[in-house]
């Protein structure tokens, strides 16, 4: 066991591009769930349309890169409207049902054999990120002593953390505005807000669109850092991990999803590296009947599932949250 190596991997991953994807997704969920009380269980669907919006525009339709970026945002916006229209007047679980069902359906459509010419089937699409790669100003990677990033990843994390900063700024500014206060009051008591003459449906829809577009941005960044979009990447596990990241940091806090995402990814990468080491090599520490190397990568999902349950039960406010802010109930 090489503990220094595990620590290095965990730290590298916690600040790296993959963690940023989850942080962005969690910021979107924070707008939905944390501030407005909307249960969006289909953030992976928003991410998928964001990613495929870019990839399909550039690869299949031969559009320009920036057009593709615009299409990503429009696609996420359109998805939010389609999901919101039938459900936002109803009880909270209907939005949850429709979003999780849609995200799964989108994944099936994007991976389908019959639409291979449009979405690339189960192999997905590649070859859309040239413009993004050419923008890379760095000539070399960076070595911070303990951790180091290659040239590509350095560009990815520069762009990624800038996007995170912008999103946080937007969320911070919006949530301290009168508009944001209405959202919070909708979360606390929808009927009270309605009795004050506010159009609750419109506010919920705006929140769904804002969070969904941040989700689309997360998908866009995922597509760029990965340089390929593959349908299986956008399964429900992605949404559930983002929820866990949000709840670790604390919902309804601007920096909650950021801190939560980094901590969660640090722990999960550390765990993955630990079990990876324990199951690799000719004479692994763990016997193969108990765990082999493909099973070791599943430990992160098992632990995340447990963590999500325990967090919600014992510490719903996470690390930084305020318990009163998250004491919402089904309506």
């Amino acid at each position: 066991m090489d503990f220094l190596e595990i620590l290095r991997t965990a730290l590298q991953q916690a600040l790296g591009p993959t963690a940023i994807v989850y942080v962005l997704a969690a910021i979107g969920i924070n707008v939905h769930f944390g501030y407005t009380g909307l249960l969006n269980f289909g953030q992976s669907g928003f991410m998928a349309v964001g990613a495929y919006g870019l990839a399909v525009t550039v690869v299949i339709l031969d559009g320009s890169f920036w057009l593709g970026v615009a299409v990503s945002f429009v696609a996420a916006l359109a998805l939010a409207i389609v999901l919101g229209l039938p459900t936002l007047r109803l009880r909270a679980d209907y939005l949850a049902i429709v979003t999780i069902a849609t995200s799964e359906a989108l994944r099936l459509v994007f991976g389908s054999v019959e639409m291979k010419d449009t979405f690339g089937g189960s192999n997905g699409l590649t070859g859309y990120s040239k413009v993004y790669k050419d923008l890379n100003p760095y000539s070399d990677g960076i070595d911070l002593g303990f951790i180091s990033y290659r040239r590509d990843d350095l560009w990815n994390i520069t762009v990624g953390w800038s996007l995170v900063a912008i999103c946080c700024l937007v969320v911070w500014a919006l949530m301290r505005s009168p508009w944001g206060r209405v959202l919070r009051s909708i979360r606390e008591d929808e009927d009270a807000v309605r009795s004050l003459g506010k159009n609750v449906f419109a506010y919920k829809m705006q929140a769904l669109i804002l969070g969904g577009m941040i989700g689309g941005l997360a998908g866009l960044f995922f597509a760029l850092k990965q340089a390929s979009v593959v349908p299986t990447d956008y399964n429900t596990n992605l949404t559930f991990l983002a929820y866990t990241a949000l709840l670790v940091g604390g919902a309804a806090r601007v920096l909650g999803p950021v801190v939560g995402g980094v901590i969660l990814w640090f722990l999960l990468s550390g765990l993955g590296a630990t079990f990876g080491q324990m199951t690799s090599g000719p004479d692994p520490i763990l016997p193969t009947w108990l765990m082999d190397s493909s099973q070791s990568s599943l430990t992160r999902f098992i632990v995340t599932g447990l963590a999500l349950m325990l967090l919600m039960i014992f510490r719903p406010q996470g690390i930084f949250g305020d318990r009163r802010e998250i004491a919402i109930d089904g309506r």
Partner: protein
Amino acid sequence: MGDGTAIDVTLSDDSKKVDGQPAPIEGVTLTVTTDDGTEVGEDVTDAEGKASIPLPGGGTYTVTLDEDTLPEGIELDSKTRTELEVRVLISGSATIAAFPIGVQAADTTGFATKLIDSIVSGIKFGLIIALAALGLSLIFGATGLTNFAHGELITLGGVVTYWFNRDAGLPVILAGLAAVLVSALFGYAQDRVLWRPLRRRGTGLIAMMIVSIGFALFLRSIFQYTFGGSTQTYDQYVAQVRHSWGPIHLNDKEIAIIVISLVVITAVCIAMMKTRMGKAMRAVSDNPALSASSGMRVDSVIRNAWILGTALTGLSGVLLGLNSQVSFQNGGRMLLLVFAAVTLGGLGTIWGALLGSLVIGIIVEVGPTFGVPSSIKEVGALVVLILILLVRPQGILGRRERIG
């Protein structure tokens, strides 16, 4: 993916009979390609005229016969194509491609036949969905919780049956019964360990829903960890011959699936209407506070709903595994259909769950007959789900007050 999925081709000469059977043709090369031209594999027919080409999964494939490899003296009938398109719907049972040589080419399955076939298989699939939907509705009715880990309870049934069947060597019927028992026990255990303590703490429904997605992730990963990522079948009843009754073609296991689900669903519905426990469940579902103050033990009613609901859902998984295959993703894929079914019928209503399931089952299976790509036939259910929420959000049989 797709262990055991293959296209089996039998080549025979109908013009020459050996013992009354068409004579097999040996040594002919057959190639299978996907619809975009990628070659999947090729095989040469053996002494019995048989060739088998393994497939990666469902989809549409083209089987091509190499005319040059035909033995001398045998030629293809002018109407027989050398290419045959084969649609592999559900991976699992072997798909048969027949090249009738020397007889007229057969593409006799007309639209009407396909439609009737797909409606029958839709009803069968709808009944499998109905068992799971009934389970979801019972649990929702008693607790108010939309359980997002419900798909994993379907997977549980199939996976446990597989273990009892393959690893413990029980016949499928016994293994299935055991799996339903295990499911019932699991229903009791999850209420006892997880949901009852949460109710006692006064945890809100939204918090419980998030707990249920955590539980779903946890269970699904556990299944993937222990069962593995591949798709498996039980060791009995894999490929069966279809019997015909007029336009309806069913094999034995499909008949068994239909009969078992009908009997169980009827029994549950009668029990809900007639027995004391059933009445208590409906009362709690209607108004928990009033039921409690009239002296009912709400907690034990909820416990029974969890036991019965999980057992029914487990049975749905057992039958789904029998119908097609067992995979850790079975339940995740069914969840969309189950949600669409209960929403269509009316969340929390027993009859609604039944009706909605049959409609969804038929829509999903009939879709491909009308040109819906078969690999995304589940998407039709989503369209129904969104439309019903726009038009009549309480569902066909739901009451308006339920949706608040």
